C-alpha cells in the first residue's frame, strides 16, 4: 500500500519578531518589589488629590469653565517631582525609566486620566529634549525646569506634531511623504521661520515650551522633518482655541498657530531632517505609557464596579450575590492584567534596549555621568554641536532601525490593547451600574468618555495595527527555518 504523503507544517519563528526573547525582559524580583512600593505611593497621592477633585474638575470644564486648569493638583504633584520624573539625574531630575513612568500613569489614570495626562503630555514634550543627548539644551531648558519645579513654579512642555489635515500621517514615513503637511520651517540667517498650525496639542494652551515638528521643505516632509523648541511667549505664536472634548477634559487640547515665529539654530533639536527618527523614538517610548493610561482607566472603573457590587444598597441582581456579576468582574480583571503585562513588557523593553542608559545611572558612579555634569556647567555652542553629533551616532550605531521597529511593534501593541481594554471594561461596567447620583455611576460614565481617547491619540488604533501588521506582512522579522 502506498504511504500517504502529508504536507509538512511550516516552522516559522514568530519569536524573532522581537529582537530579544521576551522572557529575558521581564522585570526582576527586586524591581517588582520597588515598583509595587512606588505604585502604592502614587495610589495614596491619587486618593488625596485626584479622587477628591476629578469629578468636579470634569463637570466644571464641561459646563462652561472651559479654561479651568487644576493647578493645585499639578503643584501637589510637583512637590513629588512628577513633572521631572523622566528628566536625567544630571539635570536634577529623577532619571526615571519609562516603565516607572508608565506605572505612574496607570495609577494616576485610575483616578483621572485627564489630570494624569497633564504630566504625561509634559513628559511627551520634554522627551524630545531628554532624548536629544544634548547637554547644552539640557542646561538651558531642563535644569531651569527642575529648579523651577522645586520652587513650586511649573514649567510645562508640550509636543506638537498633528496638523489640521494630517493626523496619523505625521506618525509614519509614508504618511509624511504623501500627506497634506502645510507647516514649514524656512531656514533664514541665524535660524528658522516657522509657519503653520498644529491641532489637538495636549497642554498646548498651558505649556511654557512647545516642542514642534515641522519640515524644512513641506514637499519633502519625510526628509526634512525637524524638531524646534518654541517658547510660548515667542512673537507670532498663538493659541487659536482649546477644544471641547468628550473626555479627559482636564488636559487642555489646543490648536496652536505659528505665524512667522523665529527660532534660532541653537533651538533646533538634532541636525536638520533628524526629526523623524526622533519622533519614532518618542512614539516607541510613549505608546507603552499610553497603554498604561488605558489600563489605568480600566482599573479605575473596575475598582468602582467592585465597590458598587459590594455595596449593601446595590440591588441583589447587580451585586456580588449574582454569579453573572462575579463572572463579569473576573473577566474584566483578566483583561486588566493582560493589558498591564503588555505595557510593562513594552516599557521595560524600551528601557533595556532603546533608552540611552547613561542618565539612568547614578552620575557619580559612572564617569560619563560625571562628565555630563561638568559639561552642563559649561554650556557652549560647541557642546550643542557635540550633542547633535552624538545623537546622530547614537541612532547610527546603537539603535538599529530594526531595534526601533521591533520596539514600535510591542509599544503599538500595548497601546492598542490598553485602549481596547479601557473601552471594553468601562462599557461593561456602565451596563452593570444603575444610573444614579452615586459616585459609582458618575465616575464610571466619566471613565467611559475618557477611555475613548486612548483609541485615538498616539496614532489611531487602526494605524497602530497597520504598523504591527505591516511588519508581519513584509516578513522582515521572522524567518522560515
Amino acid at each position: 500500500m502506498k504511504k500517504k504523503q502529508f504536507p509538512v507544517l511550516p516552522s516559522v519563528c514568530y519569536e524573532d519578531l522581537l529582537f530579544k526573547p521576551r522572557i529575558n525582559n521581564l522585570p526582576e524580583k527586586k524591581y517588582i518589589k520597588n515598583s509595587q512600593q512606588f505604585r502604592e505611593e502614587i495610589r495614596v497621592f491619587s486618593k488625596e488629590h485626584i479622587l477628591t477633585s476629578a469629578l468636579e474638575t470634569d463637570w466644571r470644564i464641561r459646563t462652561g469653565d472651559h479654561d479651568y486648569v487644576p493647578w493645585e493638583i499639578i503643584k501637589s504633584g510637583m512637590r513629588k517631582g512628577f513633572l521631572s520624573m523622566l528628566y536625567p539625574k544630571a539635570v536634577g531630575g529623577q532619571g526615571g525609566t519609562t516603565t516607572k513612568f508608565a506605572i505612574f500613569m496607570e495609577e494616576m489614570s485610575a483616578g483621572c486620566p485627564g489630570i494624569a495626562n497633564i504630566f504625561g503630555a509634559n513628559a511627551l514634550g520634554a522627551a524630545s529634549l531628554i532624548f536629544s543627548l544634548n547637554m547644552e539644551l539640557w542646561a538651558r531648558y531642563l535644569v531651569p525646569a527642575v529648579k523651577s519645579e522645586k520652587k513650586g513654579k511649573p514649567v510645562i512642555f508640550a509636543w506638537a506634531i498633528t496638523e489640521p489635515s494630517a493626523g496619523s500621517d505625521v506618525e509614519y514615513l509614508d504618511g509624511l511623504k504623501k500627506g497634506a503637511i502645510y507647516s514649514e520651517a524656512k531656514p533664514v540667517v541665524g535660524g528658522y521661520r516657522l509657519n503653520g498650525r498644529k491641532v489637538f496639542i495636549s497642554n498646548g494652551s498651558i505649556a511654557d515650551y512647545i516642542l514642534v515638528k515641522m519640515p524644512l521643505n513641506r514637499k519633502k516632509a519625510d526628509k526634512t522633518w525637524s524638531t524646534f523648541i518654541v517658547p510660548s511667549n515667542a512673537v507670532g505664536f498663538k493659541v487659536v482655541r482649546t477644544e471641547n472634548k468628550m473626555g479627559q477634559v482636564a488636559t487642555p487640547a489646543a490648536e496652536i498657530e505659528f505665524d512667522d515665529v523665529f527660532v534660532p539654530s541653537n533651538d533646533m533639536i538634532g541636525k536638520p531632517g533628524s526629526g523623524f527618527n526622533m519622533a519614532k523614538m518618542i512614539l516607541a517610548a510613549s505608546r507603552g505609557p499610553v497603554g498604561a493610561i488605558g489600563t489605568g482607566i480600566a482599573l479605575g472603573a473596575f475598582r468602582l464596579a467592585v465597590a458598587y457590587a459590594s455595596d449593601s444598597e446595590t440591588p441583589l441582581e447587580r451585586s456580588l450575590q449574582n454569579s453573572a456579576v462575579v463572572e463579569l468582574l473576573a473577566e474584566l480583571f483578566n483583561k486588566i492584567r493582560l493589558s498591564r503585562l503588555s505595557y510593562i513588557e513594552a516599557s521595560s523593553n524600551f528601557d533595556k534596549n532603546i533608552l540611552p542608559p547613561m542618565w539612568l545611572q547614578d552620575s557619580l558612579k559612572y564617569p560619563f555621568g560625571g562628565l555630563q555634569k561638568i559639561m552642563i556647567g559649561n554650556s557652549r555652542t560647541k557642546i550643542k554641536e557635540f550633542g547633535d553629533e552624538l545623537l546622530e551616532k547614537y541612532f547610527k550605531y546603537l539603535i538599529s532601525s530594526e531595534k526601533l521597529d521591533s520596539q514600535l511593534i510591542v509599544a503599538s501593541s500595548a497601546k492598542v490593547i490598553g485602549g481596547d481594554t479601557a473601552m471594553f471594561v468601562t462599557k461593561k461596567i456602565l451596563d452593570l451600574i444603575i444610573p444614579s447620583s452615586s459616585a459609582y455611576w458618575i465616575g464610571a460614565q466619566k471613565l467611559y468618555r475618557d477611555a475613548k481617547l486612548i483609541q485615538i491619540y498616539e496614532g489611531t488604533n487602526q494605524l497602530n495595527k497597520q504598523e504591527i501588521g505591516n511588519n508581519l506582512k513584509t516578513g522582515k522579522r521572522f524567518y522560515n527555518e
Partner: protein
Amino acid sequence: MSELINNIRESVDKFRKKELEKNCKYWEFEERGLPDNYIKQIDSKLGIVNLRALTGDEDFLEASSVIISLLAKSCVSLAFLFAQHYSVLSTVSLFKDNKFISVFIPYVTEGSVLYINQKDRIVGETDFLLGHEFADIFIIPVYDENDNRYIITVTGELSVEDSLDFMPGLSVLNFGKIHFTTSKINKITKFSKVKNFEEYRDKLYKNMLRNQLSVYSGILAVAYDIIKKYVNERKQGGVLIVEHSPVRNIVKNIGYVIAEVESTVKVLIERPENSKEMYFAIVDKVEDALIDSIQCLGGYGYMEDYGLEKLLRDFRSVKSLFTEQFG
C-alpha cells in the same frame, strides 16, 4: 409602506431639517435644555402626540418607529421622549387625548416600589425619570396596602428632587426623582388593577426596547452620514481616507448594523414577544459601531464640532436607562 406613513415621514422629516437640525446643537451646548413647552409646539405643527388617533391601530407601531428614528437623527433626547410616550400608547390603549406621557418603569429592585394608601396618597419616590418636565401625565405602577397592584395615572405639580446632572448625554433633558409626599397631586386615576404586574411591566418594557432600537437606527444613520462625508472628502497618506481598508471596513460595518437594526424593528412590530432577545443581541453591536465610527474621524471624532461624540454620549445614556442584563 402606506401613504399615510409616507406623509407622516415627509412632514416630520421636513420639520426636523428645518427646525431641529440647527437648534439641537444650540440647546445642547449653549442652553443646556430644550425650550419650555417644546412638545406642545411640536404637536401643534405635526399632531404626533396622539398618534394612534392619526394612524389607527394598524399603522401605529410602524408610524411610531418612523417618527422616533427621524427625530433621533437631529435630537436624540426628543426621540427618547417620544419613544417613552409611544411605548405607553402601545402598551395601554386608554389614552385618547393629546396628553404627553412620562412613564415610570421600575427596575426589578424592591427599592423602587411605590405604595398607595387608603386616602389615595402615594408614598415614596420614583427612580430617576428623564424629561419629566414635559409630561402631562405620569403612568406609574403601585401597590396598595393589601398588596394589590395597580397602574395609576398621576397629574399635578409633581416635585422633583435629587436631580441628576451626570448623564453622559441627553443633557438637554432633566433627570430627576419624583417625590410624591411633597407633590401637589391633582388627580390619581386607578385605571387598571393588574393581576400580573410582571406581565404589564414586561409588555411596557418590550415596547420600550423596540422603540429604543428605533432611536438607535436614527443615531446610526446620522453617524453613517457624517463619516461617509468625512472619509470621502479628506485624505490620509495622499489618498482619500475611505481608500484605507480599516476605515472602509468600519463604514461597511455601520451600514450592516443599520440594516440589522431596521429589520429587527420591523420584525419586532410583528413579534413583540422576542423584544428582549433581539434587543440584547444587537445593542452591543450598535455601541461598537458608534465607538468605531469615531475612529474614522481620528481626533475630530472626539471633539464636539462634528457631532459624533454627542451621538455616542446620547446613545450611552439611552442604553444605560434600560439595561437589565443582570435582572
